[in-house]
């Protein structure tokens, strides 16, 4: 029998499975950031004047913002001047069918298991694939078109639906929100745009795969989803990135707007390169995600499975403005080796009878550090607001850490707020019990972890849940001897 250290060592030496780079000619601007960079990006994308002005405001906010200091980890110095802020594959052609897309690119997607070439088989999933910064192929457009659903890259939305973009861009996450959101506002390259018209229930899961590819190119995605009155949409975001030696900053912004009686479900599976066993070379994932339940009886639900990145730092939040609106946050975050996750949510109760539910499951292995940070805020007018929070931590081994920072601010005494927290350890007894039934240790850990995370995984759409389950198993392989 191998002792736990041998297994741990073998496991830590494991290469990141998706570490390969695609060799395609790239159009990259020189490193560095100033006002001209912002103007260059805007010009390159042939943007209207209002958007350029908005970007410049973002750039100015960026200059004024200090870097945050409240996080529960040491923030590595990010050299903003050492990043190239725009990269696009050189060929500028628009593709009518997949046959025209660069085969090497398609091969990359294939390795990642992205169902671009298997759309028929996977009917029900429309894919807007983002390769570095420019959208390559968008599928299922017609079905969606017929329902009046808009699902396109944000660049296209700026051209085709400027009134919607101008009305909602920055309305949930202002350009001055925080330093990374400000940076994103100034230099965002592309991202997805979704609009679901009144009363329409989107018949398929909308899905975007992001992939960071060009060396030293920060990714600044911008996603904007608007669900008009009485509509419903489920949106999936999945990520894998190839291996790189230098850290890559990822500062995306996602804004969700749910009008009266509308529902948005946003699911993320994040599997970016976490760095090697010493924590070198991983992705910094500093994302601002926020939704607003603008209308009465609206609902926004965030589900995330975070297994990658060297540092994951994000708090998908909901502003519960409409009366009777509800917000949900379901999260599984895994950290191992030297990975760090400081993640959680904020629920701002503004409207009456607003509800929120937070289920957070942290898993720490190796020397990983996992923090849950959450804020539940009940405003003076939010009569009968309710929140339920449960944050659980699972520890594997004795060198990892789990931390919980729950903040509750209530200015209304009709509010009902519940908070539960547990910390547990995968016990040798549990492993041995499963071993004794013929199940090896790796499978045993996978079973236990998937059982632990089940409440969150159950929130994911079927095809995603299976992927997420596998990802959890893979990412914890060998972490118990």
């Amino acid at each position: 029998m191998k002792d736990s250290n041998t297994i741990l060592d073998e496991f830590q030496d494991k290469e990141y499975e998706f570490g390969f780079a695609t060799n395609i000619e790239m159009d990259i601007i020189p490193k560095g950031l100033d006002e001209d960079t912002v103007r260059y990006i805007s010009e390159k994308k042939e943007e209207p004047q209002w958007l350029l002005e908005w970007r410049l405001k973002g750039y100015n906010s960026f200059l004024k913002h200090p870097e945050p200091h409240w996080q529960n980890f040491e923030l590595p110095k990010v050299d903003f001047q050492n990043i190239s802020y725009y990269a696009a594959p050189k060929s500028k052609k628009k593709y009518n069918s997949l046959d025209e897309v660069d085969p090497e690119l398609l091969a990359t997607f294939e390795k990642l298991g992205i169902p671009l070439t298997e759309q028929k088989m996977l009917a029900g999933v429309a894919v807007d694939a983002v390769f570095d910064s420019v959208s390559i192929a968008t599928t299922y457009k017609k079905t969606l078109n017929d329902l009046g659903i808009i699902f396109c890259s944000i660049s296209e939305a700026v051209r085709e639906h400027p009134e919607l973009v101008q009305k909602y861009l920055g309305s949930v996450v202002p350009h001055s929100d925080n330093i990374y959101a400000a940076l994103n506002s100034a230099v965002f390259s592309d991202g997805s745009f979704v609009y679901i018209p009144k009363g329409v229930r989107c018949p398929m899961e909308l899905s975007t795969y992001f992939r960071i590819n060009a060396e030293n190119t920060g990714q600044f995605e911008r996603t904007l989803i608007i669900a008009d009155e009485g509509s419903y949409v489920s949106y999936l975001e999945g990520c894998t990135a190839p291996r790189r030696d230098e850290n890559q900053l990822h500062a995306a912004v996602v804004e969700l707007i749910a009008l009266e009686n509308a529902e948005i479900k946003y699911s993320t599976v994040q599997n970016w390169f976490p760095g090697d066993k010493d924590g070198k070379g991983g992705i910094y994932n500093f994302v601002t995600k926020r939704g607003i339940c603008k209308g009465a009886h609206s609902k926004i639900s965030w589900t995330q499975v975070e297994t990658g990145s060297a540092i994951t730092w994000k708090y998908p939040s909901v502003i519960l403005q409409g009366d009777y609106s509800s917000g949900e946050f379901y999260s599984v975050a895994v950290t191992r080796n030297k990975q760090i996750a400081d993640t959680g949510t904020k629920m701002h109760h503004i409207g009456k009878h607003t509800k929120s539910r937070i289920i957070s499951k942290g898993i720490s292995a190796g020397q990983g550090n996992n923090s849950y940070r959450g804020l539940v805020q009940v405003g003076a007018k939010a009569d009968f607001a309710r929140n339920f929070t449960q944050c659980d931590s699972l520890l594997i081994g004795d060198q990892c850490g789990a931390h919980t920072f729950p903040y509750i601010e209530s200015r209304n005494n009709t509010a009902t707020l519940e908070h539960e927290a547990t910390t547990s350890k995968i016990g040798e007894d549990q492993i041995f019990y499963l071993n004794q039934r013929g199940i090896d240790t790796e499978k045993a850990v996978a079973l236990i972890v998937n059982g632990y995370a089940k409440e969150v995984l159950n929130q994911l759409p079927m095809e995603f849940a299976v992927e997420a389950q596998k990802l959890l198993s893979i990412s914890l392989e060998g972490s118990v001897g």
Partner: protein
Amino acid sequence: MIKTKNMLLNIQDLKAQIEDKEILKGINLQVNPGEIHAIMGPNGSGKSSLASVLAGREQYTVTGGEVTFDGKNLLDLSPEDRAREGVFLAFQYPIEIPGVSNINFLRTALNEIRAYKGEPALDAKEFLRLTKEKQKLVEFDAKLVNRSLNEGFSGGEKKRNEIFQLAMLEPKLSILDETDSGLDIDALRIVANGVNKLRSDKNAFILITHYQRLLDYIVPDFVHVLYEGRIVKSGTKELALELEEKGYDWLKETVNSEAV
């Protein structure tokens, strides 16, 4: 070394320790297919340790002796391979695993064992049929089949789940570690009935117990008394009755006087 062709388990002078404390001090035991052996003895005599060592619990270090199971050196195998070879331990304190359904766990276990033997995985339909059959056989509550593994089960339900698993996995050798403790008389009868239905001339059972009560329901072929890490007396079911009557003290005295 005794070589019997169809011997299932052959333990020769087995010695084991935990944290430098010697617990098993030279165990000898031979089990043939179709036999039921009861191991009795006072607290701390090494009964559960013997079960743990046979199942391969890591905390124990084997310091001497040999164990042959079905012709293989059992001590060379990992705990999961021992299980796959057909060693089943019904735990004294079955473990709870939240969120993992009993049925999903059993399916994984069964298919791992089948894969080891080179058999194809059971499909969902066959598996469900088998589950129903076995659950009826050992009178296991169908509702518990879909619940999380042992989570929130009563002590009796946990023990009965062990017998249900035993029925599903069809091991060659089952070691029941104080399965009778904490059971009321009805549960005890159900557990015993289960074992009686499952016993055949191809499998064998080792019952570890404090009380003769269980042996009223499951009649053993042999009874062994374990004391201070050694089997100090072996006999038939009459020995159990004698122990019930006289307690262990007379045995302890005999052993201690012999040791002097």
